């Protein structure tokens, strides 16, 4: 596998950090995930759960985010834990963590202390606001990162409250960028011979992210005004339209308007002065006349899949709004093998989202399901670090593992 020679100690929890180390693990890295002994990673307590019955070994979120990792437990707040972490640090290339920035220094495991144990170590720190700056110790979740950094102020309808993304998009994005930053730091180490501390801020990831935010910030500097929230459909031929059984996002305006007119079979619209010049196509009255008066009735006679196929025949960029059932039952995705059956000792066999991308020579692969809490303690503490069975057996009573 592409990354099989990379060893990672994973101190992360939640979504952003675990998705970062999942990307690394799924393409071959050897990832050891360290969890707190009392309940583990808090994502184990978040659902979905089968039949909605909470069980730390059956969280759909945790199971997906932690494939291909081995799991150990250690109470980092126990003073004896420090040496065990340093022993692990000597065995790895990369440590990834997403604690509050003050936590690791508070238990004498700052970057400098880790680097003293292993000068080639790369420490990747993913945090809400970064390792420096006035907001450093502040709390955030996905919505707050998007509210402050992302384009949320301009998303939603005029006159109403701004609207966030669905689920936890910014946290996953931070995980992806964390995996990219890890690889970049590995290339730097190849060049320089030493490791370094990577500081990834989720706030900055939201501001960086190539949704509307980056172009809007540039446009705002030109016009000294911010993008207002507006009703979707800013030109003739573009918008989200109701179909017989759902909705379709359809961008058939501008240079593509003739294709839209061909699709609906009303060629006389080509010469209609309300729609035939580029400036007329931006006039709000003409937008309503075309989008509501002409286009919408056409869509409502078609299913979203039929409308999509017809739009695509005319090379019009478009996509239906699928729900989970539509997506999971879709023949295209199923035929391409994006779903993966994974067997887990507690949760049984379930279908998971599979590879994010295909590497021809070094494919994405499930080597093991997400770990049970502390499943690999023996393997790591005894076989790798050389503790005795008796040492390990004694640890739980000292609230170590």
């Amino acid at each position: 596998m592409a990354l099989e020679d990379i060893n990672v100690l994973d101190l992360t929890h939640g979504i952003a950090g675990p998705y970062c180390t999942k990307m690394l693990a799924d393409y071959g890295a050897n990832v050891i995930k360290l969890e707190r002994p009392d309940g583990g990673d808090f994502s184990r307590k978040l659902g979905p759960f089968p039949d909605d019955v909470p069980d730390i070994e059956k969280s759909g979120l945790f199971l997906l985010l932690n494939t291909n990792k081995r799991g150990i437990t250690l109470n980092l707040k126990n003073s004896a834990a420090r040496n065990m972490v340093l022993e692990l640090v000597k065995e790895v290339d990369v440590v990834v963590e997403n604690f509050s920035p003050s936590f690791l220094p508070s238990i004498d495991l700052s970057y400098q202390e880790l680097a003293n144990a292993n000068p080639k170590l790369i420490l990747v720190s993913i945090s809400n606001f970064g390792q420096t700056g006035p907001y450093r110790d502040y709390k955030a979740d996905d919505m707050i990162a998007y509210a402050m950094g992302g384009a949320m102020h301009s998303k939603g309808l005029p006159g109403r409250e701004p609207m966030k993304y669905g689920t936890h998009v910014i946290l996953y994005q931070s995980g992806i960028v964390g995996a990219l930053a890890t690889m970049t730091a590995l290339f730097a180490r190849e060049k320089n011979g030493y490791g370094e501390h990577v500081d990834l801020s989720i706030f900055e990831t939201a501001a960086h992210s190539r949704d509307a935010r980056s172009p809007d910030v540039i446009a705002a500097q030109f016009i000294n005004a911010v993008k207002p929230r507006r009703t979707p459909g800013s030109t003739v031929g573009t918008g989200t339209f109701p179909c017989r059984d759902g909705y379709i996002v359809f961008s058939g305006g501008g240079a593509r308007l003739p294709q839209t007119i061909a699709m609906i079979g009303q060629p006389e619209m080509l010469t209609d002065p309300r729609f035939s010049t580029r400036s007329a196509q931006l006039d709000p009255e003409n937008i309503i006349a075309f989008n509501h008066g002409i286009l919408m009735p056409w869509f409502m006679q078609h299913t979203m899949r039929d409308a999509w196929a017809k739009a695509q025949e005319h090379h019009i960029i478009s996509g239906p709004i699928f729900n989970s059932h539509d997506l999971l039952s879709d023949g295209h995705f199923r035929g391409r093998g994006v779903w993966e059956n994974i067997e887990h000792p507690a949760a049984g066999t379930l279908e998971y989202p599979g590879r994010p991308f295909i590497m021809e020579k070094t494919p994405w692969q499930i080597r093991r399901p997400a770990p049970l809490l502390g499943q690999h303690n023996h393997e790591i503490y005894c076989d790798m670090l050389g503790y005795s069975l008796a040492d390990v057996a004694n640890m739980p009573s000292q609230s170590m593992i």
Partner: protein
Amino acid sequence: MSNLPLDGIRIVELTQIAAGPYATQYLGDWGAEVIRLENLQTMQPGTRGQYAKVSQDLVDQARATLAQGFIFPNWEAGPRPWNRFTQFTATARSRLSMTVNLRTPEGLDILGKLLETADVFIENNVPETLAKLGISYEWVTQNNPNIVMIRMPAFGLTGPYSNYRCLGLHVDGTVGHHHIKGYPDVDPSMRGDTVAADAAAGGSAAFAILSAIWYRNRTGKGQMIELCLSENFIPVMAEPIMDYNMNQRIRGTIGNRDYYMAPHGVYPCNGQDNWVAIAVGSDKEWQTFCKIMDNADLAEDERFRDTISRLKNQDELDEIIKLWTVHFTPNQVFIMLQTEGVAAGPLLDDLEILKDKHMVERGFYQELPHEEVGTLKYHGPGWSMSKTPNKLRIAAPLLGEHNEYVYKEILGFTDEEYKRLEDEGHIGMDMMPNVP
């Protein structure tokens, strides 16, 4: 030569609009040399603008309606609008631009020669576009057997949707994102305005490229990577998908709310269009929040006693919080809550974020000069590294700005050959007069 981690990696790109250029922006920011292929003979709608010819009439119309896609600096499209288009200047920094007409045998030949010198070839077109040009992985490896090639179609190189044309906002629909976002009381036809899948694909593609080069550096073997916008975003939808697989439940939208936290939302503040986001993660934080609001009755109100009660009674809860937040600015609420350990954040608009004191102190936004659009602030590289300082170096290239460097220095063309390629419409800095 910089001393950045990816210095020495050459990437040739045939990318459009968002996801492809975003991947190479990351890699270019960290030192890779990115050479962008462009064509004077055609204008793909979107990347450098909708049209090569933009009338002042149209620019003024855009000004009246604030159609942001048409925004040009100083409301002037200028003689070369393709260099001034906001979407492009905002997203195409850290790369070079060369022009070549790939629709001719000689154009393809030039690409082949360039690929011989490259580590990576990246494209994000509809598969049939490359097929028509005669470009395939096989053809690419004939020029360079150990190259890493990455293709980023919306839906894949195979399957019924293979040649479907999509951008991020359509892909967000197809993989289920639009279905789980937006106002619960508003029809889904008011959705369709986010392009989160592009950003995810850009980041993943850059990661995939570095993973493949890492492998090549150890084994000598290049390879082909296929990264579809849609498939890459599916794991991001893990929660609704796993819920469907476990419980056959189809999740819809809960707006700004959360499955595990209440209150969780966006509340109006003092002033015009000012908002603050608040997320209360525990009963302890709820009690702290009540103290900050100086509302002892609320702290004891049975309806809001624990998370389950608060989740159940969110409509009433939100009304009460709104009546408090409207007395303060977003920043006041932000600081009051955060200093006591409750998560909150102001909704920073496009101008406020440039002045945000945390952003300023960390130097996230950095200035870059650009011949046509002036000096502007751009977001910095995606992260910082303790021993590898990194500053942005080059803004988005003018069309054909680096032709001399690529043709003469990399490919070794003579002045006479260069002149001939100019005459034949490969090399230049202006779109052809017949391009609309």
